[in-house]
């Protein structure tokens, strides 16, 4: 297992660097860099700018700059953010954490609602309840998530039940631990719901399909013929087989979740990686952009890896080492 993990990660590293190279070229393709912005500032002397240029090797050829960045990366340095005036790692780490909170909350909500809903729909196949669920799935699947967020924010502004965007209340520091948690959950509610609604609909459909397939298998017939109670047939025999394919999906879902989260973060002003990326791209803060992209890639790899490991635990038929 460990060998397999190492192999997987080893393949991914050149790809990550490839992403960084692509990002680097994209950022340098457009005219101007961040220094051009501060050049306009009369308060910053020419010497400072020249110093910066030397420091970040901006006067050297492009390929040299990239290699320089990669070498720094090996030493654990992600570069310097021009816009925030601090090392990239400092900003990115807590932004990454925030995005992770949001993604995790949405993930939890999606799976906790979609799986039971899918099972229920499959068991009650073609009845009124199933039809209703399928109808609403279509509706929610097609509702753009940003629109859900806009509507929810508007609703919150009218009722005042939930805070409008951001992550903490202004008095966050003065609250005790429990109150801080409640505050966080309140701020999480809108972005999480906006992010989850579409995924719930999608996952529910897949779960229903898998469950129907599992229920049609011969071993279900055997289980029923043995006289097992229906509950056991469904939850012991059908469910365990129906849920396995979803675990593989889990890893890929994660990347999609981050992608969707970026837009929601921007709309709900959640201080995560996605909204950071927007700021960085707009201000041509090149190292911040590259680091954010790398983080996105790394999260995806980790997500997939976790899914694979989890799958091996859940399904004894899967052995990675014996190939």
């Amino acid at each position, binding site marked *: 297992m460990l060998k397999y993990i190492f192999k997987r990660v080893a393949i991914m590293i050149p790809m990550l660097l490839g992403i960084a190279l692509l990002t680097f070229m994209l*950022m340098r393709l457009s005219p101007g860099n961040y220094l051009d912005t501060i050049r306009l500032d009369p308060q910053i002397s020419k010497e400072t700018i020249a110093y910066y240029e030397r420091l970040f090797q901006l006067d050297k050829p492009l390929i040299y700059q990239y290699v320089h960045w990669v070498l720094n990366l090996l030493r654990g340095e992600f570069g310097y953010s021009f816009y925030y005036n601090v090392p990239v790692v400092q900003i990115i780490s807590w932004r990454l954490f925030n995005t992770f909170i949001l993604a995790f909350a949405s993930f939890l909500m999606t799976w906790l609602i979609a799986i039971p809903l899918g099972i229920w729909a499959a068991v009650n196949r073609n009845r009124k309840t199933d039809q209703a669920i399928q109808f609403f799935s*279509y509706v929610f*699947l097609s509702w753009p998530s940003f629109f859900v967020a806009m509507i929810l924010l508007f609703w919150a502004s009218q009722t005042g039940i939930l805070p409008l965007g951001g992550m903490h209340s202004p008095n966050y520091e003065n609250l005790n631990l429990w109150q801080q948690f409640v505050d966080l959950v309140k701020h999480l509610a809108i972005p999480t719901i906006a992010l989850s609604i579409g995924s719930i609909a999608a996952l529910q459909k897949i779960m229903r399909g898998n469950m129907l397939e599992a229920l049609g298998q011969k071993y279900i017939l055997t289980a029923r013929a043995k006289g097992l109670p229906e509950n056991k047939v469904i939850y012991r025999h059908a469910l365990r087989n129906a849920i396995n394919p979803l675990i593989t999906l889990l890893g890929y879902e994660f990347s999609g979740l981050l992608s969707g989260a970026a837009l929601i973060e921007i709309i709900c002003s959640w201080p995560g990686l996605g909204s950071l990326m927007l700021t960085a791209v707009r201000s041509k803060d090149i190292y911040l952009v590259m680091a954010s992209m790398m983080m996105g890639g790394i999260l995806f790899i980790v997500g997939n890896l976790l899914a694979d490991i989890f799958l091996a635990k859940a399904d004894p038929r899967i052995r990675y080492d014996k190939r």
Partner: protein
Amino acid sequence: MINDKDNSSIPINEFQIGLRNFKRNRLAVICVVILFVLYGIAVFADFLSPYSYRNENRNYSYSPPTAIHIAHDNKLSWPFIYGTQLTFNDFHKREYVVNKSQRYPIQLFIKGEEYKLLGIISCQYHLFGVQEPGRLYLLGADSRGRDLFSRILYGSRISLSIGLIGVFISFTIGLIVGGISGYYGGRIDDFLMRLCEMFMMVPGFYLLLAFRAAVPDNFNSVQIYFAIVIILSFLGWASLARIIRGMCLSLKEREYVLAAKTFGLLDIRIITTHVLPHTLSYSIAAIMLSIPGYILGESALSLIGLGIQDPYASWGNLLSDGMSIVRIYFAPWILWPAFFIFLTVICFNVIGDALRDCLDPLLKSEGKE
């Protein structure tokens, strides 16, 4: 599966079986009709809309939807609207006062701004409208007093075409890469698949932002439009290529491919005429299901101000007005574009699902996976 009694309509090929199954799905057929109507609207937007997308009248900033009356002095009459006047109340809130002395009947085929029908025929007639100085706002007005209804119609041109062009480009790339990768295998396959995975690894929206950063600021609207289409299709090709590749892997083992090889056909010929066509039935469903991604991608970009720029209209760009809660409160009609996005997306989803279901038996016979 088909037990129709008259022999004349026995389907000849797989596609006709698929089409027949598709027609049984009434919901999907309705969606096809809706999409045809929407695309028809996009083509004839300038004729159907009472005003052009940049016709503004700042005296009617955020004017609410105009009420259309059909009764005057308790007598039925041809539909007409009353003139309105912008006033501010004690709290400096905009209020539009109806002036009953001004009546503007709605006229059909009214002469208005000149435009080029289908891009060639010069024309002045609009399907409906009112005489100046009356202003007809079916769905209300935006901040500059431009008719939202007209702007939605014009916006449909951008929002709907971006899906089609985008899917065409990414599909072409996907077919080429997937075909080559699956057919040749080995090193080429390895390299191309790693490339695909590279694109799939980064969250799409991050990649979208990075690509957008490379677009120069001095691009004009048409250039930005094409830049967005190309960026969006660059994000979409990878997953498609992987699936096509998987299908090609099994297709190339077929006897007819071997036969083609023994005839000495060029590889490119074999790929394009003997391998790729068999992926078509899957591809059609995949195309339908991926179009919403382009529409939503454009909307998202425009929503955060990185997409289509004012005065040009796209649904996402129109919706960006609603990013402010205050504006939603005072002018809720600015959310209408979302309804059109929703309608289009749901239609493509339903059609795509229906296609996948009815082409499924074909997929199995063609050795998917």
